[in-house]
């Protein structure tokens, strides 16, 4: 009970920090970085609700990002929307992402492992090519420029920030709900042994497709937001193959299949990327250092920060408890509260 209270307190504090952040750090350069970070918090969380829980590594989620961006762009320009009106399109972008995810998932989820990874890449490139070639719709290579928005310069970023915050919080909340639900249990069973799960009555295709569709929604929404904030969508930045690599990296760094892992991963990687990539003086050495850093982190923390930390803490606690009360206490505790604890470790 104390635990859940603390957990609630922690989440509430984080949320409060998120809400007051742009009021404290008013510099547009900082809030701009924060917006892209929140965009990746949402995307990494959403990606994780499918790939992290089910074990199917998707490198095709940029399809939803790009489609959300193009939908928002095309609708905004066609309907002549301006200012805050555009934000109302974001749920529509999410819906379109979900609709695209259905046939995408029905095709891709028939295969597993490597083949799944590559087929998501293949479908991704088909979408990118459509963005290049359907010029009348997408503007071809030059893409779609967003209209100039006349928000006040000093607080220009704030509406974008809060929109990103809402999507990110919703994505994390959905991820959390799924993690503790029957649906999440089914997904993780698929990740461990899909055929066995079928043999225990899990309708695997339905479950996988459901997760795929759910995970597409926030990604498409932040795609739309990203178009509006950046001011441009073009085929190579909208359907960016490195988007999925970045998102996967965030989820892995924090802890694949955990709720907090992708959030933490995005909070670390995106600001670091924003900052370091810009550094011209470091030249190309930066690129090498950036790659090398990831190699080290992946090799030192192969399961990600959160599971590794939880494991270390668990070990430490076990040791301490053994010192205190011996094995009996440990077993008692395990029988009662253990399901919850082990879930944290998983």
């Amino acid at each position: 009970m104390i635990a859940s209270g603390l957990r609630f307190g922690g989440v509430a504090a984080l949320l409060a920090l998120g809400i007051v952040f742009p009021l404290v750090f008013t510099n547009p350069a900082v809030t701009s970085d924060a917006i892209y970070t929140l965009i990746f918090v949402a995307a990494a969380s959403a990606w994780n609700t499918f790939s992290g829980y089910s074990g199917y590594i998707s490198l095709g989620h940029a399809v939803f990002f790009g489609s959300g961006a193009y939908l928002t762009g095309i609708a905004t320009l066609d309907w002549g929307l301006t200012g805050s009106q555009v934000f109302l399109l974001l749920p529509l972008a999410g819906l379109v992402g979900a609709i695209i995810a259905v046939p995408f998932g029905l095709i891709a989820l028939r295969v597993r492992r490597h083949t799944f990874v590559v087929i998501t890449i293949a479908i991704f490139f088909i979408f990118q090519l459509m963005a290049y070639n359907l010029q009348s719709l997408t503007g071809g290579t030059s893409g779609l420029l967003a209209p100039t928005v006349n928000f006040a310069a000093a607080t220009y970023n704030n509406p974008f920030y809060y929109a990103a915050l809402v999507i990110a919080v919703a994505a994390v909340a959905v991820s959390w709900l799924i993690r503790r639900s029957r649906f999440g249990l089914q997904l993780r069973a698929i990740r461990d042994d899909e055929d066995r799960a079928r043999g225990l009555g899990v309708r695997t295709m339905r479950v996988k497709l459901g997760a795929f569709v759910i995970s597409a929604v926030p990604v498409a929404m932040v795609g739309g937001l990203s178009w509006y904030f950046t001011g441009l969508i073009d085929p190579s930045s909208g359907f960016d193959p490195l988007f999925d690599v970045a998102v996967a990296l965030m989820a892995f760094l924090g802890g694949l299949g955990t709720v907090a892992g992708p959030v933490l991963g995005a909070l670390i990687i995106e600001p670091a990327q924003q900052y370091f990539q810009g550094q011209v003086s470091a030249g190309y050495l930066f690129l090498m250092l950036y790659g090398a850093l990831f190699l080290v982190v992946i090799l030192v923390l192969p399961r990600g920060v959160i599971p590794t930390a939880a494991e270390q803490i668990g070990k430490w606690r076990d040791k301490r408890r053994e010192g205190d009360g011996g094995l009996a206490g440990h077993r008692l505790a395990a029988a009662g509260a253990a399901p919850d604890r082990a879930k944290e470790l998983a």
Partner: protein
Amino acid sequence: MTLHRTRFLSVGITAAVLSAALAACSSSSSPTGGSHAKSPVVIGASLSLTGDFSADGQAFERGYELWAKDQNAAGGLLGHKIVLKFLNDASSPTQAVANYQQLINVDHVTFTIGPFSSLLTGPSAQVAHRYGYALIEGAGGAPSVFATKLNNVFDVSLPVAASTLPLINWIASLPASKRPKTAAFPTSNDPFTQPQIQFAMARLTKLGVKAVYYKVFPEEPTQIKGIADQVAAKRADMVVLGSTAVPTVQGFTQAFIQAGYNPKIFLATAGPDQGAAYLKAVGHLNNDGVMVPNAWYGGSPNPQSKKMVAEYIAQYGGTASGVNADVAEAYSVGQVLTQAVNATRSLSNAKIIAYLHSAVTLSSVQGPVRFDSVGENLAATAFVFQWQKNNFLQVLPPGAGSAAVEYPKAPWGK
């Protein structure tokens, strides 16, 4: 259960550290703008030092640095030393937008100058506009950049659609018997090249040159050889290639040579203007006779240009023909900024924007500069250049300082 607390504590700490780091970033930059009398003027740009535009980004960096060095030697801007601040955008518009936010709000630069390519210039101009900055740029000439009608964008380079006009006029001047009879028009699906190629095709068809091939290919084609072989099979007298970069030109060149096809005229819209980078890719034997339209070349008789080229060679080596036209585009940006600052006697963006809109004619290494209401350079002149025996020469329009057109182009491998 302490586990939960620790777990969220770690998240909390990280977030706190991150926000502290961000705060440090934002506060560490003391105002560098021109509040003190002789403090430096910081000028910022986002450049593509990695990614698709990295070759152009590097050339731009050199052009900007050459200008700053020259101008500092001449006393800087109104006596303030020029300090350049570059951020890398890895050819991504998202990063470019973030970079201009950073330059304006964290580094507090006095002026912003443009990135490479229209793709990045469009959204970057909006950021600059939001904070009242002028964005003088040399490589953002696509219609989409001007369509938003922002008042702060100024492109010092040549508007491109009619760039092949000197060649078309020259063909028109030939006696009918000597004109090419057929032409092939392969083009990449780039917002620049497609209009150029369509313009050339329409005009040449009027002159009686038959278009035997027109197809659009992707900007980064994977099997250039296949497309080039289809073109070669037409055996057209001339090829007008809508290319955006060196690899495409190299691919067509190699396939033409392999197919034993040597058109009388071979013009590529971009690539051959990249100096040494182009020569390295196609080889020293395979450039003779290849044409490219542009506003500038290393051998330009323009005295400002001669000076810049001499300095460039002193610093980076090579020959005049090896200087990338991007260098001149970037250098011109600096020159236009210098003239605007000197004319207004001020470091105010608002005054500079007003001045550049006042239809004054300025000079640059690329020639005269005069802006219309959306910031296009109306005074730029189009030239056509030709590689002749590893030398990059201006051949069209004919006149003082122009070399004779090599027509028909010499065989490959000579």
